[in-house]
């Protein structure tokens, strides 16, 4: 069926979709992949000063099966690339990636032989957070941006989601 068939979302299905998106955006369990200085700032965001648990991200799960958002905080060296790739592949499907900090987004100040220049060469990234390290508010702002992105997701219409991703 062509794309037109999906233009009008049935009232019922779109409501269910919004419910699913609401559920997913309200409890993003993070996989805190903290390798360097941004890991300490992510701890500050999870700790009581800024409390990312207010957004439902209270249960950091280190097992990739139970995590939704891979918060990649810190430098990824070329030695770490297979580990990162394997963990990303093990995560269950509706998964998102926040690249926190200059080193994760683009290799930052370390343009050296052993640093991966940006994790988007290895895994798809949903939200880039500049800063070295970004303030905890910056990370929570990124989480809010991610929630907006989840809200526009189409879990029940895979083709629509592909089209939207393409645009």
């Amino acid at each position, binding site marked *: 069926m062509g794309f037109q068939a999906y233009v009008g979302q049935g009232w019922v299905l779109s409501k269910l979709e919004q419910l699913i998106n609401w559920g997913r955006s309200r409890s993003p369990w993070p996989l805190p992949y903290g390798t360097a200085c941004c890991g300490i700032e992510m701890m500050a965001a999870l700790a*009581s*000063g*800024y*409390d990312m648990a*207010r957004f439902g991200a209270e249960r950091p799960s280190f097992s990739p099966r139970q995590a939704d958002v891979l918060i990649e905080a810190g430098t990824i060296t070329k030695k770490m690339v297979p580990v990162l790739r394997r963990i990303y592949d093990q995560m269950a499907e509706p998964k998102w990636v*926040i690249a926190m900090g*200059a080193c994760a*987004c*683009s*290799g*930052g*100040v370390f*343009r050296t032989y052993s640093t991966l220049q*940006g994790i*988007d060469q290895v895994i798809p990234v*949903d*939200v*880039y*957070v*500049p*800063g*070295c390290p*970004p*303030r*905890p*508010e*910056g*990370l*929570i*702002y*990124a989480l*809010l*941006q991610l929630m907006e*992105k989840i809200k526009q997701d189409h879990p029940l219409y895979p083709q629509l989601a592909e089209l939207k991703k393409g645009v």
Partner: protein
Amino acid sequence: MARPVVEKKYSFTERIYLYEIVKGLGLTWKHFVKNFTASLKRGPHTVPTCWQYPEDRREISPIFRGEHLLLLDEQGREKCVGCGMCARACPAKCITVKRGKVAEGEESRYAGKTYCEEFQIDLLRCIFCGFCEEACPKGAIALGKGYELARYTPGECQLTKEKMLANYRREKELGILKPPRKPVPVAGAAKEAAAKAKGADEGKAKD
């Protein structure tokens, strides 16, 4: 390699687990009650130690190093002359500056004879160390207070000249511009002045 063997000595209250555990429970109960009553109050900042970010923003320092600004002088003219000193001073080499000659008609818009046609900072590389601000001879660039920089694609994270000027205007209205930097008193200054006053030519600072 003999490992020292350690024998444990407990006082009676430590030997039975419950006394210490109950004391710990008492302590956490105090925290719980304090926070529970605090959280019932209205208003964003209820629990004193927790800043609920989107509603209740924490006060940040006047000299916080955040998103960059391109400064205008009093007559609203761009200070930047496109010399590229900041690009050279940047440890992460994330600034690209393209210098252009000021055309006749636009003296009112630019302070110097040359200006920066194109000024781009790759925020994904920048480590916000503030060296560009220190290295700029004209004081044309400064680090502002923006910290909400998360974007969906790397392209949106490139800071262009327009964005920096827009940042500057926004922060100027909000009145949160950074106070001008106080010059740092240098040790040799007093002796330096004395030496110059005496007109001693073999003064040690030949720079």
